[in-house]
């Protein structure tokens, strides 16, 4: 038995080298100046930079709005898909997850092009619509999975005990499906808060999001400031993960097909 557990060792070493060490380097680089001396100036630069701060605020705002939009649109869809009476075909489910498998950049470009053709000016509205379009499947799928594996007898019991359909939903179905909602929220919020190419395409570079500033700094060899911005994003993600707790665990358990 004990020998078997040593099989985890190679992966442990791999994780330390390619996950832990890189994250530590983000911290180290963000606390250094160009010549490698210790400094806090990268961090203070961010908090005194009006542009960076407003971009940061906008990114968080867009990410929250997009996540809410995805929940509002995605939950009913997942609910219908998971309900045997409303949807019997597995093909519809496949159709919903299929767009996830198409190159996201290409889909985004096509969306932006559709807006152009319809004469809709690219801006925040198109950004939100396009992002929602890109991430909706990531919201629908975990909720659908959660609803699907839920024990239906709870709902029947609630019904037998006299709950109205609305009560069954708000007091049984919804609370039980929350783990799925949370993992959907994570799968949508995290990528939207950090996206860069998608927002560039959807707004024709008019609106900059936080990811774009990180990318610009790293690509212009301003590694230290880029690392500091990444560190700030890491903190945000850490906080979100802690708030979410363990409720989203096991999201990938069944695989995606």
């Amino acid at each position: 038995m004990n020998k078997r557990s040593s099989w985890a060792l190679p992966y442990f070493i791999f994780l330390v080298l390619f996950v832990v060490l890189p994250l530590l380097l983000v911290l180290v680089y963000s606390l250094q100046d160009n010549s490698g001396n210790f400094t806090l100036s990268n961090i203070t630069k961010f908090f005194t930079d009006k542009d960076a701060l407003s971009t940061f605020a906008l990114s968080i705002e867009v990410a929250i709005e997009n996540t809410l939009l995805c929940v509002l649109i995605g939950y009913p869809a997942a609910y219908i898909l998971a309900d045997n009476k409303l949807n019997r075909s597995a093909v519809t489910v496949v159709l919903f997850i299929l767009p996830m498998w198409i190159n996201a950049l290409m889909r985004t470009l096509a969306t932006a092009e559709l807006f152009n053709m319809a004469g809709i000016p690219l801006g925040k509205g198109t950004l939100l619509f396009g992002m929602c379009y890109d991430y909706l499947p990531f919201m629908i799928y975990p909720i659908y999975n959660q609803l699907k594996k839920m024990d239906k007898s709870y709902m029947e019991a609630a019904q037998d005990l006299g709950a109205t359909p609305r009560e069954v939903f708000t007091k049984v179905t919804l609370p039980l499906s929350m783990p799925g909602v949370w993992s959907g929220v994570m799968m949508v919020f995290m990528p939207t808060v950090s996206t860069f190419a998608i927002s560039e395409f959807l707004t024709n570079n008019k609106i900059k999001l936080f990811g774009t500033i990180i990318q610009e700094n790293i690509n212009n060899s301003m590694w230290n400031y880029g690392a500091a911005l990444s560190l700030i994003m890491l903190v945000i993600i850490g906080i979100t993960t802690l708030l979410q707790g363990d409720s989203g665990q096991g999201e990938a358990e069944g695989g995606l097909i």
Partner: protein
Amino acid sequence: MNTRKIFAKAYLWLLLLVLYAPIAFIVIFSFTEAKSLGNWTGFSTALYHNLFSGSMQNSSGLLSAVKNTLLIALVASIIATILGTVAAIGIHHLHGRKKQTMNFLNNIPMINPDIITGVSLFLLFVFLGISQGYVTVVLAHITFCTPYVVLNVLPKLKQMNPNIYEAALDLGATPAQALRKVLVPALRPGMISGFILSFTMSLDDFAVTFFTRGTIGLDTLSTYIYADARKGGLTPELKPLMSIIFLIILIVLLVINIRQSKQQPDKQ
């Protein structure tokens, strides 16, 4: 009851219509010769022709991007599947704090947004003085793929009866035989879904590749499209290419799902 059903169906189909509009848009405009999307100059299969005969501007760029994308996805997901399966067996036999630590570490790459994974690995390769190219991109892809393999294999280990493996050993199988004939078949479904997930995530990745590909001019489909779009003019042959990829994925997914639902009729 019936109106509810009609509403539900209408909602689903409306959503699907919106979701597929851009994809349909690409497919439709792959059948015209116009350079830019949304410009219809009559039906033509010229773009498909160009794609297959390689007679287009910068054809080598696009074709090598496709080749790189597939090659990187294949190598990364094979290695991730092996590494992840071995790791899952190890983690399954760990206990207490060690197990918690491994699970925690395994979760980090899944929670990290692409851009953080990309930037942090970029800093690692800079720090270690490793010149960036194919190897670093593959390593980076293994990093974000392996956790999903682990997560797909672990449940299979939990479902497995540990005595079967012991029984094989008692009946005279060598550990290698027991591994090949008992363990691997039991874990295979998890390994396959982990592999497919890894492969598609690698195919679709943009940010991580973008930061770890270095300056040797290595392009995958995503970075090629990004550079192309930033230059202003999208290579027109991307439209037929995307349409073909879409068709292949559609067929593969439908076949897999129809086969699955036939194998387990009405699990509900």
